[in-house]
């Protein structure tokens, strides 16, 4: 029985590794929808539902969760996103979210900043951050 549960846990955790978890600071009580994420990560909104400032944190290009987030949540390829941001950057209308090196860096930044919102592979989640949604 215990072996079966262990196997099940193993299979489940293996299964969710490809997923991405959107994370915020444990002190942040806001609900974040897919639309909100789109607006925050495309520079069209800069605060959470309760009005507090939101600081989106991106993973650097080439990280697995970054590609997943771009295609599943933002519905754009990395080239499309680069073109999108170049429109805003070179017309003085916005700057892309700060990029962090890896899951650990995003997690540490979110754990330390109540305004931060980021995403990491589900397998990297621990108690220092709060998961608001997964994809």
């Amino acid at each position: 029985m215990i072996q079966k549960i262990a196997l099940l846990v193993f299979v489940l955790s293996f299964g969710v590794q490809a997923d991405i978890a959107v994370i915020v600071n444990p002190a942040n009580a806001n609900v974040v929808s897919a639309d909100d994420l789109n607006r925050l990560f495309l520079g069209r909104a800069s605060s959470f539902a309760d009005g507090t400032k939101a600081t989106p944190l991106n993973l650097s290009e080439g990280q697995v969760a970054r590609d997943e987030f771009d295609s599943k949540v933002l519905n754009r390829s990395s080239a499309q996103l680069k073109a999108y941001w170049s429109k805003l950057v070179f017309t003085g209308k916005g700057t892309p979210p700060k990029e962090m090196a890896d899951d650990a860096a995003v997690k540490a930044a979110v754990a330390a900043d109540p305004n931060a919102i980021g995403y990491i592979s589900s397998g990297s989640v621990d108690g220092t951050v709060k998961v608001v949604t997964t994809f």
Partner: protein
Amino acid sequence: MLKKSLIAFAVSGLLIAPAHAEVQINGFASIKAGMTLDSDDELYGYTNDLDFKNESLMALQVRSDLGEKLSVTAQLMGRGNNDFDIGFEWAFITYQLNDNTMINAGRLRGPFYKYSEYKDVGYAYDWSRVPRSVYGLGFDNIEGISVYRTDIIAGFDSTLIAMYGGYDGTTGLGDGQLDGFVGASWELSRDWYNFRIAYYNADASLTFANQDANNLLGALNANGFAALAEEIDFDKDKGTFFGIGAGIDRENLVIVAEYNRTEVDNTLFANRENYFISVAYRLGSITPYISHEWERHDSKPEIYQPYQNLASTPLAPLYFGAVATVESQAKEADTLNIGLRYDFHSSAAFKLQYTSQKNKLLDTRVGLLVAGVDLVF
């Protein structure tokens, strides 16, 4: 004067930026090689000799966050067709009034068309160049102040830009100026579709680059036809621009269409109607596209018609001079573009575009082939 001091103000902002200010440096570049396909043909600055400079450009943008919601941005650009001489293409200060409102002051890009603000950033769109016959005002920048506001209205993402200012420099017809430039552009987008509308007006004055036209004005005034001269020249005459656009971007299919109408009252400026439609389809990293542009510039015979009895008098040369000058503004051209974008690198795209333009008044056709790379850094 106000304009010059605005730029100086923006640039001085960069210089006085505190040492701890966060400075971002970005840039973009395009290297294009092209030539027309027939020996005597010219189009968009290209001739039948292979040219690497005409549409090539490099730009460096420096943005410094001064804190207290204030930032300053300067974009230095060198264009190949101007020997890569560096100039300030944009230079402005930004005040972030609140979460969704920004105020910019300085040298800005006039947001006439859907792509006009970033028309130099080739990486940001699929074509080799923006639809040139539709985006044909002959000047790009406005010195003044703009308000940029984003909202969510009934589920649509709304982007509003309102601008006030002026312009002093070259135009399509000669050196001139725009005073009291004012208007707004508004874009609504949702999921996979978007709409846009723009309206601007200003008082236009200029000296014709064509010396024959200036000589004609002098002769008309000297011979007591000041009223006719006034119908031809640009002397604080009201110009209006109206544009609409729509686009869809769904399941890799991208369709964009724009229409605009430009008029300048009491001048020889033809009533210009320009429009285009473009269809592109993304196949992974390769995006083929096809677009068609229509250019319809109706001249104003009503300017010279009341004077046609002059044709049989000794002043006939004045009359026929007026006819020729007014009619020189007529244009009817169709342009077909076929090309592709290939994203061969994470920050660079290769583009190949064939353009065929038919001048319907002269019944001539010019073909142009351009290949190049657009990149951002």
